[in-house]
């Protein structure tokens, strides 16, 4: 599935497969999105990937909508829709059937064991997301400082994250970063 195939099919296949491996939610799948979109398929540059992440954080809705932006950049509106459905559809169907199965069967301890096993995995994936995005976004020392300050403020205070994004945007506009 490389450049000679239909980009829509390529999007559907890429995100459809990815969704089934997206343990820990959308932000944990960012390294894989980056690997496929930037390194394998060459759909976008590192910088564009960082931009798209920023836009997805800035807009309302679930974090998974970063795939809508990637899809749009590959194949316009159709690409946006196909990427979104491919990333959300297969696991939605899976979730539907698994939830019916579990509410019917007696209380098993396997869900708890699997959940306990997946927690460190998904945190490790989130860490990789942080690293890959920091390498893509923080081009300067000032940028890295903004990232660090935003991380500390978001961790230590209950400040609405939108203010931090806004502050970053203002610093960028002022040419500090």
């Amino acid at each position: 599935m490389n450049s000679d195939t239909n980009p829509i099919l390529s999007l559907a296949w890429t995100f459809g497969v990815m969704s089934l491996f997206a343990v820990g939610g959308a932000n944990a799948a960012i390294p894989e999105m980056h690997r496929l979109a930037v390194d394998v398929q060459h759909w976008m540059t590192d910088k564009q990937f960082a931009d798209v992440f920023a836009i997805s954080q800035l807009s309302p809705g679930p974090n998974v909508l970063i795939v809508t932006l990637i899809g749009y950049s590959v194949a316009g509106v159709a690409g946006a829709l196909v990427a979104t459905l491919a990333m959300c559809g297969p696991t939605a169907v899976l979730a539907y059937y698994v939830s019916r199965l579990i509410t019917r069967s007696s209380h098993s301890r396997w869900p708890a064991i699997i959940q306990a096993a997946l927690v460190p995995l998904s945190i490790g994936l989130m860490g990789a997301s942080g690293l890959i995005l920091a390498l893509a976004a923080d081009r300067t020392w000032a940028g890295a400082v903004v990232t660090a300050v935003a991380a500390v403020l978001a961790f230590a205070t209950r400040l609405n994250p939108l203010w931090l994004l806004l502050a970053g945007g203002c610093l960028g506009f002022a040419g500090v970063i």
Partner: protein
Amino acid sequence: MPPDSPPVAVPAPDLPESAPSTPPGLIALFVAFAKMSLAGFGGVLVWARRGIVDQHRWMTANEFNETFALCHFLPGPNVVNLSVVFGSRFRGIPGALAAFAGLLGPPVVIVTVLAALYARYGEIDALRRILAGISCAAVGLLISALFRMMMPLIERRDLIGLVILAAVFVAIGLLRLPLPAVLLVAIPLSVAIAFFIRRRAAS
């Protein structure tokens, strides 16, 4: 699948405080999830809990936690899974579709418009600088969420968990190995470890 099976699936074993008064209809599901989604900047989960548990009282906090735990260990976007599981409990497959469409439809329209604007104006210098600043801050937010998730492991001194975490970080973040390959090794290993730890704790 029988489209009108939802009452069977509602667990409701021991909840005197606030059993759902009337199960929500399809339009109510769509509107409720659209509202949560549009309110949710940087994650919808908080708003989903607020809407489902506090505002509409469609589920108790415990039911919500159990449902979310299920959606968290399944692959895929957690809140999307939650919308499907939640919608289907009350209204079967049509309910699942209504909640799914409410959660994703309106924000997808907004994001698509933003994508079009970015494609057209993304090269303007002022906009590039603004986006660069926003993305630096956005990465900081993600890193803070990461540390919030790590704190319980550190407080519990869960050494094995931290080793697994570090191994996944190295494999994906530094070595840039493909995700499916890493998970096919890491998940069985991690589940086996969790299983033996429980068994030893039990005996």
